[in-house]
């Protein structure tokens, strides 16, 4: 194998190790948002889509690149927005709480 491929494999292995280590002792309530957050990250295929769009030179290539770009963009934008909405749900509502507190006290 050439050196470039070996280096890429090393990156792959290390990134797997990072992935294993980073998800540690997550509270179960965060499983769904975390899954959704990881889902957004693989939207990185959009980078691949841009690269093939740059290389495309025939109609079939254009179509493939276009569909891949649309797919990737939907994954990225939709993924982050829906994750953000989920996480909003998990946030404490300090404003509302504070607004009530003085009345009760």
């Amino acid at each position, binding site marked *: *194998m050439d050196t470039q*491929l070996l280096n*890429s494999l090393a*990156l*792959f292995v290390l*990134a*797997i190790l*990072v*992935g*294993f280590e*980073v*998800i540690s002792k997550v509270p*179960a309530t*965060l*499983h769904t*948002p*975390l*899954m959704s*957050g*990881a*889902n*957004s990250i*693989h939207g*990185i*295929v*959009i*980078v*691949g*889509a*841009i690269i093939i769009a*740059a290389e*495309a*030179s025939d109609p*079939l*290539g254009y179509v*493939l*690149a*276009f569909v*891949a*770009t*649309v*797919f*990737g*963009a*939907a*994954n*990225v*934008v939709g*993924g*982050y*927005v*829906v994750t953000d*909405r989920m*996480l909003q*749900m*998990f*946030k404490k*509502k300090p404003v*509302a*709480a504070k607004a009530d507190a003085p009345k009760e006290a």
Partner: protein
Amino acid sequence: MSEQWLFTIAFFAWLVGAAAFVLGLHLMNSPASARKGNQLSASGMAVAIFTTLAYYALRGEGLSIEAWVIIIVGLVIGGGLGLVMAKRVKMTAMPQLVSLFNAVGGGAAALIAIFDYMHVAGTEKETLSTAVFVVLGVVIGCITFTGSIVASGKLQGLISGAPIKVPGGQMTTVALGLITAVGTIILILSAYGAPLEGIGTGVKLGILLAITIAGCVFGITMVLPIGGADMPVVISLLNSFTGTAAAMSGFVLNNPVLIIAGALVGASGGILTKLMADAMNRSIMNIMVGGFGGGDAAAGAGAAAGGGGSVREVGVDDAAIQMAYAQKVIVVPGYGLAVAQAQHAVRELAEILEARGVEVSYAIHPVAGRMPGHMNVLLAEANVPYPQLKEMEEINPEFSRADVALVVGANDVTNPAARSNPASPIYGMPILDVDQAKSVVVIKRSMGRGYAGIDNELYTDPKTGMLFADAKAGLESLAAAVKAL
């Protein structure tokens, strides 16, 4: 600027993007920092996308007009679709939307691999390793594409949630596996410089097409036999697949950020899948084999089965009196509350009780409902104050001090068999100690079983009163009855 310097800058920027993904996930490990983590991850993505565009635009040849059009129109359409769907989706339909995004991500990875193979096939660039990564990218990407669509359809109710047996079953799987394996071997052996180099490009592309189709079919046959309620775990697994497919396309295109981010999702998604399965006391294998629980249809079918001991029914007014004069009431929400969309009704009842001086809290089981965090999301949507939501470990010791435990559409997560009966399928799953409360009121429609399809001896406990009703209607009449006191 020299090409090499341009690449150096781009490389660093990609690395920054990848590091942002890792730190973003790290921050998402705790509720307090989770949103910031997601934003950091999104910034990393913006950096990665912008870098790629700039790099290819500034490089020697630059980007052609066609490329600009494809990219800009593609980004606008895809991003717009994603944005609208993500903004419009109802809270409870989020998992199926995540699954759809997952599907398109996998699809994109497959398309990239196909595109690349079409360009290199028959040229010097078609090395052994290219062939391997292309096939892996296509197969994994296709499985995720169709599998995620089926999973999404099951959750949305477009496809029956019940396990669907695929005609031929194992035979189909074997056949698809054979097609893929043989195709892969031929493609690898026909790579530039390999023994079968002579095979024509057209034939090779035909084989790739066959592999593509096999992958798509396999995605469908893999997910169909799995019960609807197991879908969150399946989606998480497919999520991990898409990450891996993205990494494969990174190898094909020789791009570091694709490799790193893809592998990151592949691994973290895998761990997450395991954690989710663990929380349900199941193994991933067991889930993928399918047929478990029978979804809600089977639960309905089991409705007549009743339990052994005798059941005491309780009237709305009796239950209302019990709660109105209690000091401490613990509400235990479950899947039935979600189905009946009774989150607002339960908050109203709680407010009425609190106005009378009753202390109300909610006991949140980690796998109550049908997705992790389901109850938190629902109750937060109904503006239940966050401090009233108590995690299982926190609330369990409090049940013995509660006068009434009000179980609303929850079943398995309260089943004492998990503690006492080693033969039970849920034996060993940590449960809410509802049976420790001084008295218990259960709102559900019938003696129907829950997700695990088993009887619940809580219902025949002498101190339990059953209030047979739809969760929403039942809660509303309870609220009215308390008010009338």
